[in-house]
């Protein structure tokens, strides 16, 4: 595999058990450090594509090849996935336990793990939240906490499913700033076109499981005919 690419997807197809096609002939390449946004109407297959690429989708019904960058022993450690709803993602009873899960699983000493958790929380502007219970936090805070839970694992590739969903404009601004500072390769599904325009290097328009267009955010988002045709305007 070419070392410049983080991800090469070739002829990816996915069918649900009921026969419904979710992904059909998806091909694209993701360069290292690149931020690509997937846009498309509801039911276009955005979340399914992210789940398939992250390895979280069951193998049955999935065909095609997904090549990743340099292989590491622990695949989970190099991939991060942010769910639409942070409540689906939280598995710890405290912020510290949740964010530090990957570190403790990898056998990092608790004292060192605590330091790394504090760093990750600082990175998402949640410094000092360690002992808080996630149930006491706002939706936006939970979302940033989930992001911190990914960052501690130092992933090379991050998948974000509707990162701006449910956030108010100030929270979106905070999130955008955090995401912009992150050097990782990023693939995000989003319907927030402002976020896409500000963050993404390229945009991939998906409809009915197929890639309809792939190009710069300015080109795709300003193409009224294309956007209207696919129910995005």
């Amino acid at each position: 595999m070419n070392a410049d690419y983080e991800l090469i997807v070739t002829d990816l197809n996915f069918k649900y058990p009921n026969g419904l096609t979710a992904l059909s002939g998806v091909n694209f390449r993701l360069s290292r450090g690149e931020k690509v946004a997937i846009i498309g109407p509801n039911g276009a297959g955005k979340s399914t594509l992210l789940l398939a690429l992250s390895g979280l989708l069951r193998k049955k019904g999935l065909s095609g090849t997904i090549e990743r960058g340099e292989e590491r022993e622990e695949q989970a450690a190099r991939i991060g996935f942010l769910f639409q709803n942070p409540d689906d993602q939280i598995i710890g009873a405290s912020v510290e336990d949740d964010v530090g899960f990957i570190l403790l699983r990898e056998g990092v000493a608790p004292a060192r793990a605590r330091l790394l958790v504090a760093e990750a929380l600082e990175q998402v502007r949640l410094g000092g939240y360690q002992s808080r219970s996630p149930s006491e936090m706002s939706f936006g805070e939970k979302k940033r906490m989930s992001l911190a839970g990914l960052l501690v694992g130092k992933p090379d590739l991050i998948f974000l499913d509707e990162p701006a969903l449910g956030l108010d404009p100030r929270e979106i601004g905070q999130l955008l700033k955090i995401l912009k500072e992150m050097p990782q390769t990023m693939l995000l599904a989003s319907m927030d076109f402002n976020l896409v325009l500000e963050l993404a290097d390229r945009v991939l328009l998906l409809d009915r499981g197929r890639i309809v267009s792939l190009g710069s955010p300015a080109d795709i988002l300003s193409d009224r005919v294309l956007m209207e045709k696919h129910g995005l305007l």
Partner: protein
Amino acid sequence: MNELSLPLTIVPSYLGGRHPLLKVLVGAGLLAVFLLIPDRTPAVVAGKGVIIVLLWLGTGGFSRLEGCFRVLLFLFSFLGIIFIFTLLGDAVSGTAGMALFRRLAIKSIWAATISFLIAGAINYRECIYLSRILKIPSPISSQMLLVILIWGKLFEEFRHVPAAWKSRGLSSRYLKRHPELIARLLKMVLLRTVRQASRLELSFLGRGFAGKLYTFFTASWSTLDSLTLIGTAALLLELGVIARTGC
């Protein structure tokens, strides 16, 4: 459990702040003694009642009154069903059958109350810690801990049900007239919980879950823990004396 919704949500309390192992020992001791000592005399029942009140005060007091009430209400409705079956059944009808039912009912109330009070004083992090220090094999402890996590989600879903009813203009009177709707709503809650559970599974897998749960939480045994253990043992011993002497 802490962090979970009512009726098990707890507030900071004396027993809540003690060593998790102490809570397990106190709970196990109370359950064993309460179930072993028969409730023959009013003095024994009164003695047990006093211990329950102390336990209740030590685990949150009045702020848990509503939760206790809900649990007991649930238990009584369950016992009501058993009572009806006891009356209807040939094998257990008569004086002996009713005496057995009375015994079982009282023991169930003791066991449910103790379990509820102790469970509400142990949080999820402490459960993970306990499974580690008690060296419970991870396949068993993880299953139990995951069930607790899913229960939390189930409670959350149930909490949204009254609002969902009202938003659709469904009053409790309307639901009483159309009981089939309750079954449909329950189905929806369970389906949503299953969906959430599968999302949680993905979250675990995404973080490389390999059958073990982790926490930063640690605890050390204090003098206050020892004193609480001695105090509880003394109370239970006293109960034993009351049961033996009858006064």
